[in-house]
C-alpha cells in the first residue's frame, strides 16, 4: 500500500486553475520527485497535501484514510511535514525557537528534546548557532534549519519545496546527501519538488513531470534521466 495516494486532484490558485486532475503516489520509505517548469503546479500540489490550499476536487489518501479537508495542524500530527519554498524560517526567532515551532503539534517534551539533539547531529552548524536569530543565518544554514524544523514534527513523509533553490553548487550537493541520509537512515519518505532535474532524478526512485497543472510523464527516475527529449520538452531547458 502506498503511503500517500493522490487521485484526480484539482485546485485553483486564486482565480487561476492550478491543478487539473493529477495523480501521484508516494510509497512507504520512497523518494519521489515532482519536476516541471515554473507555474506547473508543483508547489500547489504540496500545499494541497499539507492542507494549506483547499483542493476543488479529487482525493488525497494518507495511509488509506481520506485527508482532503483536514487542517495543516491535523495533517502535521498525522505525520506529514513541509519544508516550504524559500525556506520561510522565522527570522526573528532563534534557531532553537524555530525548531520548537516545528514541534508545535507535539507535546512529548522528552522526545522533542532528543529529536532536537538528532537534528543537531545531522546539522552541527545549527547547534553552534542555536541561540542566533534565524534571519542572521546564511542561505545554506537557513535551508538546514528549514529541514530541521520540518523534522521536528517527527514526520513519516517530508514534503520539500525546492530545497536547493538559490544555494551554491557545493551546498546543493550537501542538501541532496542529507535527503538520502534522511531516507536511508531515518527511514523517511520524501516528496521533493525540484528545478534541479539532474540531482532530483539521481536521488529519487520515481519521478513525475508536470506541466500546466497536469502530470505529463511519469516513471522510474533512472528511465526519466535517460529520456532527454521528455525532459527537454517539459522543462523548457536542455539538460
Amino acid at each position, binding site marked *: 500500500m502506498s503511503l500517500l495516494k493522490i487521485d484526480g486532484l484539482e485546485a485553483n490558485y486564486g482565480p487561476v486553475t492550478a491543478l487539473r486532475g493529477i495523480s501521484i503516489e508516494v510509497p512507504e520509505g520512497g523518494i519521489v520527485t515532482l519536476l516541471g517548469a515554473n507555474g506547473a503546479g508543483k508547489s500547489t500540489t504540496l500545499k494541497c497535501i499539507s492542507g*494549506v490550499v483547499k483542493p476543488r476536487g479529487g482525493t488525497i489518501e494518507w495511509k488509506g484514510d481520506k485527508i482532503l479537508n483536514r*487542517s*495543516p495542524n491535523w495533517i502535521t500530527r498525522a505525520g506529514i*511535514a513541509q519544508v516550504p519554498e524559500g525556506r*520561510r524560517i*522565522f527570522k*526573528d*526567532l532563534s534557531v532553537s525557537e524555530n525548531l520548537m*515551532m516545528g514541534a*508545535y503539534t507535539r507535546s512529548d517534551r522528552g522526545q522533542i528534546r532528543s529529536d532536537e539533539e538528532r537534528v543537531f547531529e545531522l546539522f552541527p552548524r545549527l547547534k553552534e548557532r542555536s541561540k542566533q536569530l534565524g534571519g542572521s543565518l546564511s542561505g545554506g544554514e537557513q535551508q538546514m534549519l528549514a529541514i530541521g524544523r520540518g523534522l521536528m514534527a517527527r514526520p513519516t513523509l517530508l514534503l520539500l519545496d525546492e530545497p536547493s533553490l538559490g544555494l551554491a553548487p557545493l551546498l546543493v550537493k550537501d542538501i541532496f546527501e542529507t535527503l538520502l541520509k534522511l531516507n536511508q537512515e531515518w527511514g523517511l519518505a520524501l516528496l521533493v519538488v525540484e528545478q534541479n532535474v539532474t540531482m532530483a532524478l539521481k536521488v529519487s526512485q520515481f519521478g513525475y513531470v508536470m506541466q500546466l497543472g497536469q502530470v505529463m510523464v511519469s516513471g522510474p527516475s533512472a528511465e526519466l534521466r535517460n529520456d532527454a527529449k521528455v525532459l527537454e520538452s517539459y522543462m523548457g531547458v536542455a539538460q
Partner: protein
Amino acid sequence: MLGQQILSGLATGSLYALTAIAVVVVFRNTRTINLAQGDFAMIGAFLGIVFLKDWGLNYYVTILLVVACCIVLGFGVERIIMRPIANSDWLTLFTTTIGIYYILHGVAGLFWGRDTKAFPLTFDPTPVDILGAVISQGHLYNMGWALAIGAVLYAFFNFTKQGVAMRALTDDPEAAYMMGIPVRFIVLLTWGLAGFIAGFVGILIAPIIYVSPEMMDEVLVKGYVAAVFGGLYSIQGAVIGALLIGVAENLAGGYIGSHVKTATAFVMIVVLLAFRPQGLIGIQKRREI
C-alpha cells in the same frame, strides 16, 4: 525636584507601556489597530469597584477576577466580532474597533452611570523617599506591578510554546500555518493577552485617575503614540516610547505648565514621524497594512 518628576513620569509611563504592548501585539498579529484597548481596562476598573465595594471581596481576589474577566472580554471580542471579518482590510478592522469602543463606553454608562467614581481603595498619601527623590506610594506600587507584568510577558514570549508561536505568527503567518500552528487559536490568545494586560492596567490606574467611561481615553492615545515609537511592531520600542512620553509630559507639566502636559505626547509623535517614520527602533520589515 527633577529626579522626582522623572520618577513619577516613569511610573505613569509604565502603565502607558503596558497599554502600548497590548496595542503592538494585537496589531502585528491581526493588522488591527485596537482602539478599544483602553476600554477593556475601563471595564476592568468598573468591575474592580463592583468586586471590592459591592461584593466586599479581597483586593487580590479582585485583581484575579478583573484580569480573568478582561481576558474573557478579549476572547469574546475576537470570537464574536473580529474573527468573522479577520480577512478584511485594515480600515475595516480599525473602524470596527471604534464601534467596540463606543459599545463598551455605552455598556459602562448603562450599568454604572456616566459620573466619575472614586475607586474604593486609595493609597496612603504619605510619599516615600527613594535616593532623595520623593514619590507617591501609588506610583511606586504601580511601577512595581508593571515591572512584574513585564517580566511575566517576557517569560511568556520567550519560554512558552504559545508565546513563541505568537511571535512566529508575527514573523510569517503562512509559514506558521504550514507548521501546523493553529493560527486562529493563536489570534484568540493574542486578544486574550490584550485583555490580560488591560485588566491589570484598569485596576492599577483606577486609584490614580478615578473611574468613568472616559477614564482611559487619554491613556489609550498615549499608549498608541508609544506603540508608534516602536513602529507598531517592536515591543522594546513601544516600552521605551511609553517611558519617554511619561517622563517628558511630567517634565513639561512641571516646568512649563500643566496645560501643555497632554500635548507633549503629540508633539513627540509629530517630531518622531517627521524624522523616523519607521519608529524609534528601526524596523524595516514591518508588515504593510
